């Protein structure tokens, strides 16, 4: 069953066109990785799906409902949550406040304060610490936990490994693996190709705002992905 459907999406920043006529689908329970070089339009695409960027053209359909013009907070209520690039925690709020402010009173499910702390046990001791005082890895854990608090049907992850030490990235992905195995639907942006191919069932590769390659992660060989990634030769 298709959960998310993006149709001919155009996104612009003034005269700059970041996303050009992108279409793809994400089925329920699938993990899809969006890959591509810097400036390929991945973050803009995720933000358009989450409602943080108003697209210039095209449609975003979620669970059969056209949500193209819906503001971000209404999309959260429908079940879309984004872990934004750069984490974007509320610095003066404590870990607990950051998490609880994101709990959606209308959405119930597996995730609450307790279950989030089970997945990220390192946060337990930091519960009453202001987010500004956390380490990068702790902040990323809060950012993911904050998105989970609304019990989303579709989780959007934007570069969760950015700016983190390799050992911390490993820990974050270990926690994510547990979430993915439970059948969550995830659309993630990841710079690290190996990791993207490892975690995702399907890969969508973008170049200069367009989708240039798409397919199951297992079926794609690395060379094809690399050439699509850098646009060395355009796949026919």
């Amino acid at each position, binding site marked *: 069953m298709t959960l998310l459907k993006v149709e001919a999406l155009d996104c612009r920043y003034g005269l700059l066109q970041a996303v050009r006529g992108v279409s793809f689908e994400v089925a329920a329970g699938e993990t899809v990785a969006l890959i591509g070089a810097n400036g390929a339009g991945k973050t803009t695409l995720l933000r358009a799906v989450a409602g943080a960027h108003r697209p210039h053209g095209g449609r975003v359909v979620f669970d059969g409902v056209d949500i193209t013009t819906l*503001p*971000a*907070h209404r999309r959260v209520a429908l079940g879309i949550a*984004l872990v934004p690039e750069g984490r974007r925690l509320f610095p*003066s709020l404590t870990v607990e406040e950051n998490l609880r*402010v994101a709990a959606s009173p209308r959405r119930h499910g597996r995730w609450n304060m307790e279950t989030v702390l089970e997945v990220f046990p390192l946060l337990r001791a930091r519960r009453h610490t202001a987010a500004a005082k956390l380490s990068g890895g702790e902040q990323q854990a809060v950012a993911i936990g904050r998105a989970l608090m*609304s019990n989303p049907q579709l989780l959007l992850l934007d570069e969760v490994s950015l700016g983190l030490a390799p050992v911390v990235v490993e820990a974050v992905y270990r926690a994510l693996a547990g979430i993915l195995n439970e059948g969550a639907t995830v659309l993630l942006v990841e710079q690290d190709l190996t990791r993207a191919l490892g975690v995702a069932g399907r890969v969508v590769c973008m170049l200069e705002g367009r989708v240039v390659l798409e397919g199951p992660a297992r079926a794609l060989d690395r060379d094809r992905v690399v050439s699509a990634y850098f646009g060395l030769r355009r796949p026919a």
Partner: protein
Amino acid sequence: MTLLNAALQGIFLGAFYAVLACGLSIMFGVMRIINLAHGDIAVFGAYVMFVIVEHTGVSAFIAFAAALPVMVVLGYVLQLTVLERSLKSGILTPLLATFGLSIVIQNLLQLAFSPDVRSLGGSAGAVTTGSWQVTSGLSVSALGLVVLVVAVLVFGALQLFLSRTRMGWMMRATAEDADAAELVGIDSRGVYAWATAFAVAIAALGGLFLAIRSVFDPVSGPTQLIFAFEAVVIGGMGSLWGTLVGGIALGVAQTLGAQIHPQFAVMAGHLLFLVVLIARYGGGRDFLPRARRLLLARAGR
């Protein structure tokens, strides 16, 4: 003893400034709007209470309770109709919009109520004139005490609201990063509208105290705005308790200044404001590093 008494009266006066400044601080803290119509909104609130008192003969405090829902709705609608639009086009537009609003309110009040001065002092009962003589040189007025207690309660309640309630967290989250707040399901428009509603309601409380402690007319707003603005800046922009401290510092500076010369009162407040402004935002930034460089250079030699 005279100085001590002056300082005490300054604290009471400052508590009044703090109440006036509170709403200004909320709007700046949450939305980065400097509301130039804040003083006029307080005076507008005073006129609403004045009308209620004139028509029903109730006490000023009951008139305030009756005016409160009106002011909350007014603030909410003001945000959604005027301020929200102006916020979309950069930080200078709300400044212009609220400046315009200030002129509109003043002129509407002139039309409706004429430029005569009014007061609610007569309808506040014994609070207006009651006082206790503590020692020969030290007296505590009932109104001063009421204002101080109410100011502390208002700031305390706001503090509790912001730190303990979900709505308070939503307000702080939106203030810090409205974009990210939307992404976790917070309706930032609604939060902004409530913030303005609170600010306008507390402005009306300032209007009540203004109307009881002295007189007001349709153009009293800008003077109140200046004192409120100075209190916010002295206390640190957007800091809640800072605003209370700033208001009291301003009040004490004015009453102590009046000890030097009665006409020096307001000037002393302005001077304190300027000193804080320069120390924090202006010369301080240039002067302090330069002084440190000079010292280091000397030590290096």
